């Protein structure tokens, strides 16, 4: 049996035919669509390396079955920058040294984008650490990660306020 679905992936519509309902969103992205930016760490929801935005909310792509997602809007790390202009969270990670090996980084950045949209942490470092606890960094770059999320939150807040004024 095959399943057809349509996804809006990083802003572009995609028709997908699946021959197997077992394919996770993570494997679909990496192995079938050729977007390897989203990483596989544990494949069990425990590390956050596979974080993407699903209809604007951060989720673990390794626990989402692709077949369930017809009509969904998905943003991956590849869809974050605007051409050569990086997303403010990407900029902030570079400036604050929010990584070492970089393996967890796409997931960290997508999770941070999701967290900032949720508005639950603001620029409080303790709330940021709690809000980012679904993303493990084996290199323990947590200090820089927290600073990056804090800084990005401030800049994005300032930009929204600037727009509103």
């Amino acid at each position: 049996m095959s399943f057809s679905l349509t996804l809006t992936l990083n802003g572009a519509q995609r028709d997908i035919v699946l021959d197997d309902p077992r394919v996770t969103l993570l494997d679909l992205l990496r192995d079938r669509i050729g977007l390897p930016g989203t990483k596989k760490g544990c494949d069990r929801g425990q590390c956050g390396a596979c974080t993407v935005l699903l209809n604007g909310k951060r989720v673990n792509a390794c626990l989402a079955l692709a077949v369930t997602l017809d009509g969904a809007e998905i943003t991956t790390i590849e869809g974050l920058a605007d051409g050569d202009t990086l997303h403010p969270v990407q900029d902030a990670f570079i400036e604050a040294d929010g990584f070492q090996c970089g393996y967890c980084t796409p997931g960290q950045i997508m999770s941070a984008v999701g967290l900032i949209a949720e508005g639950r942490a603001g620029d409080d470092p303790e709330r940021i650490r709690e809000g980012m606890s679904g993303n493990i960094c084996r290199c323990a770059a947590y200090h820089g990660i927290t600073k990056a999320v804090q800084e990005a939150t401030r800049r994005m807040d300032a930009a929204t306020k600037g727009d509103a004024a």
Partner: protein
Amino acid sequence: MIPFAFLQPTSVDDALAAWTPGAAWLGGGTNLVDLMKTGGGQPSLLIDLSRLPGLRDIEMSDDGGARVGALVSNADLADHPAFAARFPMVAEALLAGASGQIRNAATVAGNILQYPRDAFFKHLGEDPLDGDTTSLSILGANGPVAVHPSDFCVPLAALDAVVEVQGPNGPRDIALADLLAPTADTRTALAPGELVLALRLPAEGATFAGHARYLKVRDRTSFAFALTSAAAALRFDGPRIAEARLALGAVAPTPWRVAEAEALMAGQAPDADLFERAAQTALSGAVAIGDTGWKIELARRTAIRALTLAAAHTPARLPALPGSPFAAQAKDHAHA
């Protein structure tokens, strides 16, 4: 994962009609897909509930209660201001569970019906006493049985939550505590083919809003299952406790409530000695299985601390570290 058939019905009637033995309902999938990857769950048919209409509402009733659709996400429920104001310890427990990503995907019904941690290795025939014994029950179990892993269900049990289900024999209401009471051969009291449609919190639960806390002790500060936890709720009449609720998490195959422990607090002024006696009573009958002796003492202290926090008052805003024993002394260690 072994292969399975897949259906995505668009009405509750179609979903119920599609059910056959061997089928499984799919909510957010954060528990079931994980289990299927390990081989611990092998449904022949997966029935995805995500397209069922009308199961994503949070209704705050005029009498002070609430009704929550089965597909509401854990995050959306915790973040619902009116719900969190009425049932703050439910919101705190939700936010103390899993991670931001998992809470966005996980549904209310899926959280309640999640498999215990031993389901992940049981099918391999491993001796539960050989491996990590932290998830074993010290109460209400005959032998090495895993605890109910949910944080959410602990305050729900304390507040007498009711679950609305529908199945081949029509709709029925079942108390959460009864739903989660496992028997020798069933994991829950849900009959084959029954579907959870909603969760109800009785209005009385909201009368505890001013003094209600969830406390969760973990191996690390965030993103870990509970070693022990407690939901404590007090209603005061002047300086004395009019009514108390206490449920313990991660100690039994179901959230653990002891009527005598709650009753002995009624009419009393809150103090350390009272909470000590309540905790002792709640844990009477606790038995260490394997090397879980530490759990009895930890659960006792967790109960006392949760009652003490509840007696103080519910904070206006949830602490930065929800449910954490470190919430009070949390400081900025980022040197930011």
